[in-house]
């Protein structure tokens, strides 16, 4: 270790220790201090670890958490950035607070990495594996389009040509560029490959990367994910090594499915979470775990799903779900469609930097499905309540079932009066954080973040 790295590490560890013990914080400041003293400190910090990098636009946090859960079946200590600080400084902090591996031994680290930070991290740490979830349109005011987003990840992958790329095979973009790396694909093979359909109108990423004709599909799982093929040039989905072979039950709280013929259950709804579980399964199998061990890991996953927890508010079962882009929103709407009981719907829209400052994306969400569900009460709020209110009106939500409530404090009061026991809140990031803070203040959410 160079003197500079040593000093940097010392400063970082001390500041982490101080912040952690006296200030109750410390997720990226120690990283900032350390990287200011030595910009290349990650090279030293990461060299004694086998590193798995998880990236993509959606599902990074949960996929990372599930991979960690699975790998616990084999490794005692796993370094991970579970607070979601997924840029260089946050990851530096993650290593600073970790226990160092014993001399001569290698630790293992599973890191969620922001798309634009893959390259700067791989410049310093050579990972063993990249896990790629998907590339959806997400907050275009920050990262640009899907192709440039993928290119940012590729720029990092190119620096580690020996690392295995474990990618979602149902996502056409992950099969669009030649890579020197060993590649392994996972996906859904739960339907006969006999259909011939096209993706819905609002779907991104549906052009053949070879000949630029529209892709067709034998079947679609959601958005542009599925068993795709190009009728013009023969480009098609790669062979899958790990497959969801059956989906037997879906509710907002659970999914039952089979991977490679083995039955699994996870305590969270949404097809996107089956993809997350599949990615974690694939990593588990790649490191030599057996199907039973992975099932054991999934059975212990109940606490991982913080973004979809149920909160008891004066007798109502309230779920707050983060939404931020059309594909995610459509998946959440799809999840609501699996709710067997009548419920109330609250939509909270903000347009701060962390939410994405352009609200245009709400028009690509399939809110037209909501009036067809058994929803007894609609309420819209947040700083951009007018935008989401008009969106629901256009979607066909009747005025006499629809309350407009800009004040989030009053939203909580209104929820207590809603005619159903179940209430689903769809909220953008800052609206979700504000709701959670208010609910915590009122004692409905205890401790933690």
């Amino acid at each position: 270790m160079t003197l500079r790295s040593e000093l940097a590490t010392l400063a970082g560890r001390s500041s982490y220790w101080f912040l952690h013990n006296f200030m109750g914080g410390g997720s990226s400041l120690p990283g900032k201090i350390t990287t200011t003293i030595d910009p290349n400190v990650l090279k030293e910090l990461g060299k004694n670890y086998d590193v798995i990098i998880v990236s993509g636009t959606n599902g990074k946090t949960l996929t990372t958490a599930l991979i960690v859960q699975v790998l616990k079946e084999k490794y005692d200590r796993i370094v991970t950035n579970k607070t979601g600080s997924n840029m260089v400084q946050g990851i530096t902090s993650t290593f600073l607070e970790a226990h160092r591996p014993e001399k001569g031994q290698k630790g293992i680290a599973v890191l969620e990495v922001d798309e634009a930070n893959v390259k700067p991290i791989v410049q310093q740490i050579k990972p063993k594996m990249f896990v790629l979830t998907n590339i959806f349109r997400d907050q275009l005011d920050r990262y640009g389009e899907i192709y440039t987003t993928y290119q940012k990840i590729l720029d990092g992958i190119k620096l580690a040509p020996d690392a295995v790329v474990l990618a979602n095979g149902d996502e056409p973009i992950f099969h669009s560029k030649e890579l020197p790396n060993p590649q392994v694909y996972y996906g859904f093979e739960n339907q006969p490959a006999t259909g011939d359909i096209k993706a819905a109108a609002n779907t991104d990423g549906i052009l053949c990367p070879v000949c630029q004709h529209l892709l067709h599909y034998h079947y679609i799982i959601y958005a542009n994910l599925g068993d795709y093929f190009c009728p013009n040039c023969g480009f098609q989905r790669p062979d899958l090594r790990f497959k969801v072979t059956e989906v037997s039950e879906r509710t907002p709280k659970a999914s039952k499915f089979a991977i490679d013929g083995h039955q699994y259950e996870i305590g969270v709804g949404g097809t996107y979470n089956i993809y997350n579980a599949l990615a974690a399964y694939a990593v588990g199998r790649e490191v030599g775990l057996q199907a039973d061990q992975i099932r054991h890991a999934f059975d212990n996953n109940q606490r991982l799903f913080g973004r979809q927890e149920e909160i008891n508010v004066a007798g109502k079962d309230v779920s707050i779900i983060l939404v931020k882009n059309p594909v995610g929103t459509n998946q959440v709407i799809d999840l609501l469609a699996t709710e067997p009981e009548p419920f109330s719907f609250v939509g909270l829209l903000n347009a701060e930097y962390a939410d994405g400052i352009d609200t245009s994306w709400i028009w690509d969400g399939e809110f037209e499905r909501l009036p067809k569900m058994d929803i007894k009460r609609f309420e819209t709020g947040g700083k951009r309540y007018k935008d989401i209110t008009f969106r629901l009106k256009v979607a066909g939500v009747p005025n006499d079932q629809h309350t407009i409530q800009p004040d989030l404090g009053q939203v909580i009061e209104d929820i207590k009066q809603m005619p159903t026991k179940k209430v689903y809140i769809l909220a953008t990031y800052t609206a979700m954080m504000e709701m959670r803070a208010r609910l915590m203040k009122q004692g409905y959410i205890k401790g933690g973040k």
Partner: protein
Amino acid sequence: MTMNIRVAHLYGDLMNTYGDIGNILTLRYYAQQIGVEVTDQIISLEDDFRADDFDFAVFGGGQDFEQMVVAKDLPNKKAEIIKFIEQNKPLIAVCGGYQMLGKYYVDASGRKLPGISAMNHYTEQQHENRFIGDIEIQNEVTGQKYHGFENHQGITFLGDDEHALGNVLKGYGNNGEDHTEGAVHKNTIGTYFHGPIMARNGNFSIHMMFEALQNKYPDYDFTDLKTKVKPESY
């Protein structure tokens, strides 16, 4: 008599990056209030576009890759798009769609690509800068104000036979220099207002809806119906 408006969503599966479909949903919302039916159809790469089959068209914005593919296909539809425009039928062209209706545009990688010259504006590129944020404009003819969101690297300059959609009150507009935003030629509107310009501006939607109806049903007196629909905005 049941009236209807048939909408062509030009390359709606490739050029719909910023909620452009909101324009069609909003048109339907207002049309329902006066008993007018709205149908819509995507016209994409492998489809023919026939001007006579439609009364209204939306041509949205796309990502660079999709826009490049669409630009290659567009000459196949050029004659019918120009015919549609010259028949005074309303067409809303947003961002990339706006650029491609003009004489030429320079894309993000610096390539100069021909448009279909249905309108006379042209588009250059700024160097490593984007115009991002809320925008508000005032239309000189009607006095109406419109607001929206812009996010574009291209800078567009107006040509002959077209005038701006509005003067910029807040934001950047066409090029950040001449305080104009958008272009109007007959009933065709090109604009950098993201996607749902009609959703955000009820006055604009209703105006365009009646332009389409008057154009399609020239003998019908719409005075009464015009009192029955109220603009909403956000």
